[in-house]
């Protein structure tokens, strides 16, 4: 056999270069500038994304865990992967809850706490700097720090719950191998970070942002300046006379209200100066969006029927909070059983916070909707110097103080964000010509709550441990932020509605417009004391209900403003009054109800204003189809699609001169309907850019014709028009749902919109033994490879519920156990 000569090195050089290139390419994050992780370990089946599909990551098998010296107990998972905690005491249960939540929702917790703190650019890069900066300037980090120290100093026992919860999360993280990091971490090329009570405080403030940050002070001030008092009052009345408030007008208030006169009428010494100088329908220049976020449209329903209205002669309670719909879901179902406190409570928790937010035990049930009161005010400061470092308050010079926050940025140098604060709160906009230029913002969520018996966790621990409606009332006295309408029921037949939270003590008229920040008496005189908060208990009518509408009738002694729903609440009260008795099935049907009261009230006036003379046959048949529509937003309804486009177009044509994106207040839909119905010749319907004089009829006809131009009789149905999905939390393509074909629309009880809707449906029938049902639009797991990632979503979309039994540790339905030993 001949020995061959050595080879020329050229081939070796080429091969080595290719190998080197491959090694480099696969080790770099964001290869070729694409939004990809380092691909080598990502594709490697034993370290990369395929590990998410490994059985240990998609299913819960029995485990013995001995990490913590402090806590023992068991987590038992049901067939749906719902954890049930069996612990000696509540603190241990919080540890178990932290551990289980981390095992299912680690990325969600990481992302949510980062989003609130303004720490997204740290993992996602420079594109998120503006978002982070806005979060920091609005003071969410500061709010969370204050809350954490309030918990720590005033409620040490509750703080121990948070420490145990954090410990559970961190113990889970410690035993996590990199190959088991949730897939989102692998995609981003980022690793889990330890949890802390501060992060739980961030989660709380994130909820406050979602639920209580909405305000329109700047828009209101701008609108009154541009339009003048008279037009403003006509377009934007504070109260809808048709409202059917949460606390029915039959409730009388016999307390002596506190003095709120420390405040004044807004703009008392700063009356609008340009009213009527500018013709109010002139197109104003486009200006920036409001510096406060316009919270996603959030609404919710809750109600309870009492013994006289219930087929079981015991209360039935229902709750469906409407929030942004994401995968994984915003809620995490749990059951907590403790020996020391004798707890056996089930419901949903928020990943990032221990305990149960909405739930029930064998004696009681409770649920929440958002109150929607405006708890944000804006102040114009009297600056002493051009540099905005000093301002006058009651004629005394005050100094601005500064908060310095670091924004860490992936692949870039960190930056320090400086936020000036006055006594009122942060200055969010320090540009010379911005909408909120050098205004100071006061937000309730930055304030130290008044002295109270319990902190935020203590309130929920109290609800979980309650054995009667009275116990829950007692716990809720300490509830502060964000304000919620709590519906309560117990097995003895009591039902109650208890709006709870910090409601500012405002003098009449205060808070709608930008205030004078140079006078301390322009602030609130504290908050309404708990015993004077509106409430209703065991009413004659046999039910209590809320759907984000106005809290009370006009005779409630305190002035308040806010964002209130105008249709669901009225419809809910109407249905509950109409039907004589409800069983749990009828209650569930009401949660799924897709009837639009808005359509009922508007449609006849649209139809009446269309010219029928010159119509062809197909147009006539369309019109009769619309006239026959029952106002139910079913998935396959085409009249719903037509109506929805029609009303939107008429509305847009109507408000063309006072658009929100031009800085005006939004014309409320109820007011729009009223004007269309009662004042069809009103000048708001005239389009200034045309010579003709338009009326409601002209606009209705024009909108009808325009829609008809592109209308196809076999065209898209309501589900396609609405285009609702449940997307992944971080918008990762492929991790979301398919098109949802459930009934519903924003103004119906089943308030399913583009990406928000009923985020948890719960029905509890109280009695000797409670029967309960519930479903989230997601599943227990945050792992897209798990069958429990979206199993519940399919049930939810079909309008079905899972039974929610209270389980003992020997329950047959509990499939697997994680045992924690010392």
């Amino acid at each position, binding site marked *: 056999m001949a020995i061959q000569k050595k080879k020329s090195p050229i081939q070796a050089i080429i091969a080595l270069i290719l190998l080197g290139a491959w090694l480099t390419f696969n080790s770099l994050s964001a290869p070729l500038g694409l939004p990809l992780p380092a691909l080598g370990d990502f*594709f490697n089946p*034993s370290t990369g994304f395929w590990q998410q599909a490994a059985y240990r990551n998609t299913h819960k098998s029995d485990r013995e865990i001995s990490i913590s010296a402090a806590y023992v107990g068991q987590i038992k998972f049901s067939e749906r992967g719902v954890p049930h905690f069996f612990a000696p005491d509540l603190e241990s249960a919080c540890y178990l809850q932290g551990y289980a939540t981390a095992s299912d929702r680690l990325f969600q917790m990481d992302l949510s706490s980062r989003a609130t703190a303004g720490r997204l650019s740290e993992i996602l890069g420079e594109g998120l700097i503006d978002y982070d900066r806005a979060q920091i300037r609005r003071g969410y980090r500061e709010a969370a720090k204050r809350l954490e120290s309030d918990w720590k100093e005033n409620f040490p026992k509750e703080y121990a719950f948070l420490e145990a919860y954090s410990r559970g999360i961190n113990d889970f993280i410690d035993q996590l191998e990199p190959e088991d990091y949730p897939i989102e971490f692998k995609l981003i090329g980022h690793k889990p970070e330890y949890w802390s009570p501060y992060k739980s405080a961030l989660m709380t403030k994130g909820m406050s942002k979602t639920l209580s940050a909405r305000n329109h002070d700047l828009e209101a001030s701008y609108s009154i300046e541009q339009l003048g008092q008279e037009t403003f009052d006509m377009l934007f009345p504070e109260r809808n006379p048709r409202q059917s408030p949460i606390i029915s007008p039959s409730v009388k208030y016999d307390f002596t209200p506190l003095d709120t006169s420390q405040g004044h009428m807004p703009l008392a010494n700063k009356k609008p100066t340009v009213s009527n100088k500018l013709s109010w329908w002139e197109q104003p220049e486009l200006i920036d969006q409001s510096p406060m976020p316009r919270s996603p449209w959030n609404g919710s329903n809750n109600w309870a029927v009492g013994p006289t209205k219930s087929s079981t002669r015991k209360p039935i309670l229902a709750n469906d909070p409407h929030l942004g719909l994401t995968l994984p879901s915003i809620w995490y179902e749990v059951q907590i059983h403790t020996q020391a406190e004798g707890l056996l409570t089930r419901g949903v928790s928020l990943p990032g916070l221990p305990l149960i937010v909405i739930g029930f035990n064998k004696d009681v049930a409770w649920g929440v909707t958002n109150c929607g009161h405006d708890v944000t005010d804006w102040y114009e400061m009297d600056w002493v110097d051009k540099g905005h470092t000093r301002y006058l308050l009651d004629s005394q010079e005050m100094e601005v103080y500064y908060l310095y926050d670091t924004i860490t940025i992936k692949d870039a140098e960190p930056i320090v964000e400086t936020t000036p604060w006055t006594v009122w709160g942060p200055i969010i906009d320090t540009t010379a010509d911005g909408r909120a230029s050098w205004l100071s913002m006061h937000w309730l969520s930055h304030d130290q709550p008044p002295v109270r018996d319990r902190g935020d966790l203590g309130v929920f621990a109290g609800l979980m441990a309650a054995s009667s409606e009275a116990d829950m009332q007692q716990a809720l006295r300490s509830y502060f932020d964000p304000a919620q309408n709590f519906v309560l029921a117990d097995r003895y037949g009591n039902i109650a509605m208890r709006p709870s939270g910090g409601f500012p003590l405002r003098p009449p008229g205060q808070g709608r417009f930008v205030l004078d920040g140079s006078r301390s008496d322009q602030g609130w005189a504290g908050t309404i004391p708990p015993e004077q908060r509106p409430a209703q208990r065991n009413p004659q009518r046999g039910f209590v209900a809320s759907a984000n509408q106005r809290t009370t009738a006009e005779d409630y002694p305190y002035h308040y403003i806010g964002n209130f729903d105008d249709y669901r609440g009225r419809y809910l009260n109407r249905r509950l009054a109409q039907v004589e008795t409800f069983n749990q099935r009828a209650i569930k049907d009401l949660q799924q109800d897709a009837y639009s009261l808005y359509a009922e009230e508007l449609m006849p006036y649209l139809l009446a204003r269309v010219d029928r003379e010159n119509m062809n046959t197909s147009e006539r048949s369309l019109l009769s189809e619309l006239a026959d529509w029952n106002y139910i937003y079913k998935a396959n309804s085409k009249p719903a699609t037509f109506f929805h486009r029609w009303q939107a177009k008429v509305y847009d044509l109507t408000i063309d001169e006072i658009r929100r994106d031009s800085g005006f207040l939004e014309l409320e839909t109820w007011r729009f309907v009223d004007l269309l119905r009662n004042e069809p010749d009103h000048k708001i319907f005239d389009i200034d850019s045309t010579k003709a004089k338009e009326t409601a009829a002209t606009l209705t006809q024009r909108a009808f014709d325009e829609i008809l131009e592109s209308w196809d009789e076999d065209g898209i149905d309501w589900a396609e028009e609405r285009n609702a999905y449940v997307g992944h939390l971080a918008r990762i393509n492929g991790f979301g749902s398919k098109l949802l074909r459930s009934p519903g629309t924003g103004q119906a009880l089943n308030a399913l919109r583009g990406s928000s809707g009923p985020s948890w449906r719960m029905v509890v029938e109280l009695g000797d033994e409670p029967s309960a049902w519930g479903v989230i639009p997601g599943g227990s797991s945050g792992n897209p*490879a798990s069958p429990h990632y979206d199993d519940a979503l399919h049930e939810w979309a079909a309008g079905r519920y899972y039974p929610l039994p209270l389980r003992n540790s020997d329950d047959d339905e509990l499939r697997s156990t994680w045992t924690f030993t010392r």
Partner: protein
Amino acid sequence: MTRLQLFIFAAIVLIVGQLLSLSWWIPLAVVFVGVLIATVRNGRAFMQGFWAGLLVWGGMATYYHFSNQGLLGDRLAVTFGLPDGWLLVLVTGLWGAIGMGLSTWAAQSLRASFVSLRPN
């Protein structure tokens, strides 16, 4: 080493890498060094590494995709713009194949430029 032996060697190293959850480049380095040390017959060694990578990585991906009933693969396929989860299995296999193929080829040709090899 014969071609078959080289293929088996690369496959075994890859399997060990999978079992120990080693970072993806470690088996490539081990095989690279192994080939430099061992006498390998002349001829291109790319395909031996390629088939080993395709077999081991593709096999692992097939196992996970199949046992997971495609839940993950089908979602991620959408993320990466692929029509089906099985294509993601194929891409995974090719990824392992290319890496190991380059490793065996580079090591063998490097050795060949220093040492005289027996022809196949």
